[in-house]
């Protein structure tokens, strides 16, 4: 099965190039190609998860063993995110048929392929390439939403992302200049000697800020509200839910494997705290649903950054739990918000016309603010117990900011919820609540069901995540897996 893994990247990539051509000849066949590819990808990854022995493994590509060749590194964490990518790609598949369909679907396939690559890649440069691919496909997709505002937003995003790429490349160049290798395992081996200095730190920070653009890191996330507010909801959901997490994953990977400087974690922590503050406060005043969700997403990513800055295994666990939880919730919320554009006041009395949508919103909101026994609570519980255990006072500030942010979050989310459940309209305001589109509501319900399922199974899932975290934390295992037990032929 392991050798099929390549296909999860290769097939969507191939599909992306072939799709426009096929579509031109047969639309009927074309529309099924994308979902089929992604479904197959899900199946492969699922199988791997179920039938694998739980041990990580590495796949060398192109016949060269690492550290010379490039490789895919597959541990539980990578597998999890790759699977989530394929699955969410399938769920958020752009079905809509118009003249842009081939373009959009091809870009979506490209996005999924590169995202999967981002999750699996074991090589710094490869990561960069996939990262760029993600960026390009995202621009395309946002622009394909083809509203005027979306174009403007895309331009801003494009510029920012471009500069970010340059910075990332700069960082990678620094590393390469220092160590002469870009293989992560090899770097992990060399890092304590060669990168544990100012240069390494500079490289890391450059990469952090570069990749941070996607991961909604504090000062470089200004594209977020506009893009999420103007792009198609399904795309926003995919970006907020998944792509940001993949960028985060990359940063986490680099931090765990290579950069052990305390300054690195400190920077992440500070930026995370600032992100939480800026995001949640900005969301408090947001006047429309999508922007509110976008700001909230910034805040949540800030929380995850705080978790990233935590040193040990429970920290990784917190990152994973928070990321997956946010992935679930934000996707669901963006799907709900599909038809909820415009002023928040339009939502007045919505629960009466669409009780399911109202109920789902409340459910997601409750989990987001960490109401036990919903999974959000357990994620947050992991985070705060870990934060409280640190001696550095900065972590204590992080803890306080996090608690404050949760209060603000509850305040603005439930202001909306209260509006929805308002039955007596005040004078001058007529109830003209938008209906929630059938498809997006169904999708949201899917996430809601998922959330409830997770609530029920929180205990086994928690243990599984703990194992994943332990594996991701283990640097020696990574090095050994990639360098000592190559699957390809050894030079």
């Amino acid at each position, binding site marked *: 099965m392991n050798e099929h893994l390549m296909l999860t990247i290769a097939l969507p990539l191939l599909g992306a190039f072939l799709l426009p051509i096929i579509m031109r000849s047969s639309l009927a066949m074309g529309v099924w190609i994308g979902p089929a590819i992604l479904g197959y990808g899900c199946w492969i990854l699922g199988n791997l998860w179920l039938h694998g022995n739980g041990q990580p493994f590495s796949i060398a590509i192109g016949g060269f063993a690492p550290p010379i060749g490039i490789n895919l590194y597959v541990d539980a964490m990578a597998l999890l995110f790759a699977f989530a990518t394929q699955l969410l790609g399938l769920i958020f598949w752009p079905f809509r048929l118009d003249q842009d369909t081939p373009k959009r679907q091809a870009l979506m396939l490209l996005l999924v392929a590169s995202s999967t690559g981002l999750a699996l890649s074991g090589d710094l440069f490869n990561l960069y390439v996939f990262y760029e691919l993600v960026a390009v496909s995202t621009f395309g997709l946002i622009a394909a939403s083809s509203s005027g505002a979306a174009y403007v937003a895309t331009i801003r995003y494009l510029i920012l992302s471009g500069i970010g790429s340059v*910075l990332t490349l700069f960082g990678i160049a620094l590393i390469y200049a220092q160590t002469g290798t870009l293989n992560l395992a090899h770097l992990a081996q060399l890092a304590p000697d060669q990168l544990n200095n100012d240069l390494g730190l500079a490289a890391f920070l450059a990469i952090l*800020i570069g990749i941070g653009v996607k991961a909604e890191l504090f000062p470089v996330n200004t594209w977020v509200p506009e893009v999420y507010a103007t792009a198609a909801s399904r795309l926003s959901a995919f970006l907020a839910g998944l792509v940001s997490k993949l960028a985060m994953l990359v940063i986490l990977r680099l931090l765990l494997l290579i950069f052990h400087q305390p300054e690195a974690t400190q920077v992440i922590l500070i930026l995370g705290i600032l992100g939480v503050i800026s995001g949640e*406060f*900005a969301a408090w005043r947001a006047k429309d649903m999508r922007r509110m969700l976008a700001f909230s997403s910034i805040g949540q990513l800030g929380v995850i950054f705080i978790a990233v800055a935590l040193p040990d295994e429970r920290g990784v666990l917190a990152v994973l739990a928070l990321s997956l939880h946010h992935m679930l919730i934000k996707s669901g919320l963006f799907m709900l918000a599909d038809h909820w554009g415009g002023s928040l006041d339009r939502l007045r009395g919505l629960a009466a016309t669409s009780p399911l949508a109202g109920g789902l919103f409340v459910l997601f909101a409750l989990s987001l603010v960490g109401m036990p026994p919903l999974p959000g609570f357990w994620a947050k519980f992991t985070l705060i117990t870990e934060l409280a255990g640190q001696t550095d006072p900065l972590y204590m500030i992080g803890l306080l900011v996090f*608690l404050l942010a949760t209060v603000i979050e509850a*305040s603005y989310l439930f202001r909306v919820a209260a509006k929805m459940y308002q039955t007596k309209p005040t004078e001058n305001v007529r109830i003209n609540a938008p209906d929630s589109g059938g498809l997006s509501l169904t999708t949201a319900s899917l996430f809601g069901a998922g959330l409830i399922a997770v609530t029920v199974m929180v205990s086994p899932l928690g243990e599984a995540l703990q194992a994943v975290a332990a594996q991701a934390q283990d640097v020696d295992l990574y090095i050994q897996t990639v360098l000592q037990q190559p699957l390809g032929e050894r030079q």
Partner: protein
Amino acid sequence: MILTPLDELLLFSGATLLVALILGRGLAAGWMVTILYGGQLLTLIKMAALGYSDTIIHASINFEIMGQSLSWRFDALSWFFALITVASALLSSWFSCGEWERSFKQHGGNIWLYHSAMALNVFTMLILLASGDLLSLFIGWELVSWAGFLLMAMAGGVATRAAMRYITYAMAGGMAVFGGIALVYVAAGSLQYEAILTAVDQMSTTQLWMLVVMFGSGFGIKMGLLPFHLWQAPAYAETPGPGSAFLGAISSRMGLFAILLVLVKLFGIVNIDSLKIPFTLIDARDLLAWIAVFTIILPTFTAMKQNDARHLLAWHGIGQGGYMLLGVVVADAMGGAGGLLHVFNHATYQAALFMAVTAVIHRTGTSDLNKLGGLVVRMPLSFVVLLVGIIGLAGLPPMNGFVSKWLVYRSLLNEGMPLLFLAAVIGTLGTILSVYKLIHNIFLGQLRIEHEQVKEAPWSMMVPMLILAAIIFITGLFPGIPLAWVASVQEVIGLPVTDYTLGGVESVSGSLDMIWVIGVLFAGFGIGAVIFYSAGRSKRVHQLDNYAGGHFLSADVRYQYSDNFYAGLMHLIGGWYRGSFLWLEKSVTSLVDFISLVMQGLYRRANAEFYLLSTALFVIAWVVI
């Protein structure tokens, strides 16, 4: 598997919730739910041994989640609070059956939501009360908060706004507790009570301070302690009728329960006493005591200015919470007993008062104190209930409120705390003033023309009210009944136990025997009645046959004094109502608003590249330097 009584209780409670959810729209839903509450009460009575001894009943369910074990169990403390919870739920629910339900529906209320929210509240409260470790405590805590939100918000409009305010406060409190739990977890390595008990002794002063502040403020918000009290009155007052009776009776006492459990039982009053505030003479315990007395005084005097009966009562609910905390913080045998007994007593009279006011609203359609009057001739039984309730609330003999307040006063006297004592009495005096305004403006004075045809509240509402009134009187006459439970609660949470008798308290420095006091009082009334009725016959006259300086009164001119009732007093102290807490709340809100404006501005500016580059430069410069 053999079910323990606690399992049965929780199952019963869950079943109540299910029935409310499934059948809540049906005709007899109210009655069914009420009967199920009765079942819960019976299960509680089955556990009555808890109220008289130091035993524990465990629930069969426990979980192991992410390395945390969660368990649930009942002891005397839980049982005492659960008894109050379930009994007030039973009576409130009974009150809502039948006619109130119908009129609620007619006015566009969602009766299904009401019953479900009530059942959910009771269920979550029982879960909270049963918590066997800090994590399950927190879970219960959050559940109770959100269930309360549901009940408060359901009336819509003003109520929703009040509920929003509540949930913001409650979230803040919840997060403080959450942070506190994290700190405890780090310090003790576990969230089990036993582990914490041993860890507390090794904690540094700073740690203990942080914990006291976080838990104290977190739980205090729910109790409506100053300065976190602003949410409570409007939230409770705007809850539909019997719901407000239930919430007013017990909801905010969950905060006290948690304080008792965490601050008193786990941390220990002695430890809290050792936390000195630098450069002052007071310690953390004094601080709590002073917070308690300010919680007594300020809300009570705010209540005096209210012109809406429900708001007036809700404000008093906050103030009465102060007595409970005060008693508990003084923490000698009498104080502890007084504070705990006041929880019980307060629940009885507050529920009765809210119900009586709801009955008045049900019949007249208003709770505006300036639009009522003279109803005693039309709703005499409601008047009696309200009278009994206000005597209890004001803490005068012969009702139960007197006993608990007496105990609190006595403890302050014994400990030699004159200022706290004085403050507590000022609170009582303020209460007397404002409850007289309540009963006068509703029931006394001139009956309005539009209320000529008003009828007494229906029996479905009357019976629970009368039961409550009877409880208020009987527990005033025999305070020993609840004091027995209180004594075992004191034992459980590690406070000294009072020496109680059926009629009151035995003490070297002055005892109290309510049976004698009330007996003599009623004998006095009897003699008074004999004197009174042995004199000539009297004749009732029309209310307009009244002295008006020679003026001829007519029904179309109001001859009633209700607005600005304590004009002379307000002339002096009116200027002292500065609304400082409101100002504080507003300024916090504006601060948040301002910050969020700045943050939004940050994101709205289009020069993202500038941020990126400047950050990059800054970071690199930082590294290089």
